[in-house]
């Protein structure tokens, strides 16, 4: 599938800050089943974008803007070819052995409730790691309700699981916490999801999880949709949790409240030729 992406992150400030510093993880890389055609990032303010690769292999851009900044728009545009790999992620840049992804982070520390939830699955006899993970995916999708109201960017897996509600980030964090508590390395992925229901305009990017299965490698699970990743998933950055893969992390000096609006538009490119 050829996906066209247009993604705007718009900050509006009540009182313009004196300056803004940000780090972006907004650039996808190639791996098996994902080929980036074109990709560009535009910042509405005058600044220098410094490109780097972080320690997990994600492409980052850092910049600082001297204000007063009234509005800041980060515009991302590109096209990517994807293929369905049954969720298996091969050929991605790997900087660490899978064991690293058993680390707990503040956002993914399993609460006793998450541990029990995961242990119950194991006890239910799902067997091999892969089917255990599929069980986790299905049960989590069943157990949780998608709800953007009660959670926010700093909500932990434990908090979201306690109320059984959250957004894709929360679903991913709970999945990761549960998988790690079972001794399965797991990580957070941020990216985009092309919806087959014709809803092209979204107000957020997407997030899911990858878990490591011996003999198979990294396998992507999308607990918010209850499915394995497909060619509708466009993988941008991976990390131990949201903070390690967040599309934008930033700080501003001075100024008042900020208003953040995200507009993501995904379209499937018309195929030139069809079989």
């Amino acid at each position, binding site marked *: 599938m050829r996906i066209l992406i247009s993604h705007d992150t718009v900050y509006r400030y009540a009182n313009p800050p004196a300056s803004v510093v940000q780090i972006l993880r907004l650039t996808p890389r190639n791996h098996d089943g994902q080929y980036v055609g074109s990709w560009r990032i535009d910042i509405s303010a005058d600044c220098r974008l410094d490109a780097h690769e972080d*320690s997990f292999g994600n492409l980052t851009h850092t910049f600082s803007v001297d204000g007063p900044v009234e509005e800041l728009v980060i515009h991302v545009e590109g096209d990517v070819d994807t293929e369905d790999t049954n969720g298996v992620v091969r050929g991605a840049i790997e900087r660490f052995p899978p064991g690293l992804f058993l680390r707990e982070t503040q956002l993914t520390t399993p609460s006793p409730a998450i541990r029990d939830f995961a242990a119950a699955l194991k006890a239910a006899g799902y067997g091999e790691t892969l089917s255990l993970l599929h069980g986790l995916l299905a049960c989590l999708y069943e157990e949780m309700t998608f709800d953007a109201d009660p959670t926010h960017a700093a909500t932990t897996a434990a908090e979201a699981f306690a109320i059984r509600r959250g957004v894709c980030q929360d679903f991913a964090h709970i999945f990761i916490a549960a998988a790690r508590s079972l001794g399965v390395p797991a990580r957070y992925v941020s990216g985009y999801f092309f919806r087959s229901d014709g809803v092209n305009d979204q107000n957020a990017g997407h997030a899911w999880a990858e878990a490591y299965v011996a003999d198979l490698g990294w396998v992507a699970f999308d607990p918010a949709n209850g499915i394995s990743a497909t060619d509708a998933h466009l993988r941008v950055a991976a990390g131990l949790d949201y903070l390690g893969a967040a599309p934008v992390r930033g700080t501003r000096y001075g100024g008042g409240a900020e208003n953040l609006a995200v507009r993501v538009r995904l379209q499937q490119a018309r195929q030139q030729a069809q079989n």
Partner: protein
Amino acid sequence: MAVAFDEMTGQDGKLRPAYRELSAWLGEIRPDVLDYRRREAEFLFRRIGITFAVYGEADSQERLIPFDVIPRILSAPEWALLSRGLEQRVTAINAYIRDIYGKRECLRAGIVPEDLVFQNPVFRPEMNGQKVPHDIYVAIAGIDIVRVDDQTFYVLEDNARTPSGVSYMLENREIMLRLFPELFSRHRIAPVDNYPDELLATLQSIAPNTAAAEPTVVLLTPGVFNSAYYEHSFLADKLGIELVEGRDLFVRGEEVFMRTTQGPKRVDVIYRRLDDDFLDPLAFRPDSVLGVPGLMSAYQAGNVTLANAVGTGVADDKAVYSYMPEIVKFFLGEEPILRNVPTFRCREDEHLGYVLDNIDKLVVKEVHGSGGYGMLIGPAADKAMLAAFRAKLKSAPANFIAQPTLALSTCPTCVDSGIAPRHVDLRPFVLTGRDKVRIVPGGLTRVAMKAGSLVVNSSQGGGTKDTWVLDG
């Protein structure tokens, strides 16, 4: 427990040569004069304002660390041995950290278990594959040494993050010089007052290559509420560098600048006394207001040196400690000059079994704890405490190590009843620059003020002494 080795009288009560003059002097000085000087010392410390906040105490107020006026003395040959051992140990630590964040050869060779590194909270994935200026990760180390007999010094703990206490080494000496000039005139004591110069030279030597010929060095403090704030301001003053908080610095175009009255000034080396977690809200804890947003990107671009580097905790974690002798051998191809305290790794079944059976004879430590917290001293614990620790050990064995209860050496100390032996340790400070390793002869001697107590940590009521290294 065996009778402890005494720094002054050894194991057999025979006066050791390094203490000959001190012993004579102690015999001569009138108790009321000694007592008067003790009170004078306390008054001076109070006036300087050298205080320490103790966490976990109900009133948690700042207080004075007790100072003992009787110095602890090391002979020249003893120091020569220690000094060689310290340089070797810190050199190995630097090589190890570089390897952990680089080629990981010691993991492949099985020297250190992989999970101990990758699942350790103090391992910083953000440092993986990052170069640091001149490959120096630990520019300032504080190595805690204990002694058990005439010949044997053990390393008790490596401090490779932000070791504190050096201000006490300097202040203790200054106060002793002031109060006991006659005692100094009877000895040839190696000076320590060049420490600030040595530290500055070390920090300047590891400036990034993009720095000006005369690099700008600053000391970054978490602020006045930090328990070691006194030391931060003291050192900045002695080094003649700016004492800054996160809000005084900012990052532009991957360079770090300091706000000054003359406009922004580029900063090349940051002697940071702020923990990794708080350094940069864009890379670590997003809620930290103590750090500098974007600092890590300037660091990764090679435009600023952080001393110590980020992620050095992988070398001083108590779980890694037990592997240090192998680490020294692996990276330097040498036998360790300074030995480790024999250590049981509770993560290994065999060791765990032994520890559970002998817990009343052992010291059990939490691998991520510090300052004497989360520690059990078996022989001093009651049944309930032993049972509680056994349960903790069983539920998370990998979180603990255990060591035999050491008969730490004692040193004569002024106490209420006169002069009595009290257990001591020693924290020398090892400075690693691009050009060389510098170790000021001496360090901080900590003393357990309670009779029989082995806990010397200032947070647990320990005191300090001036440490003398005899010249020739």
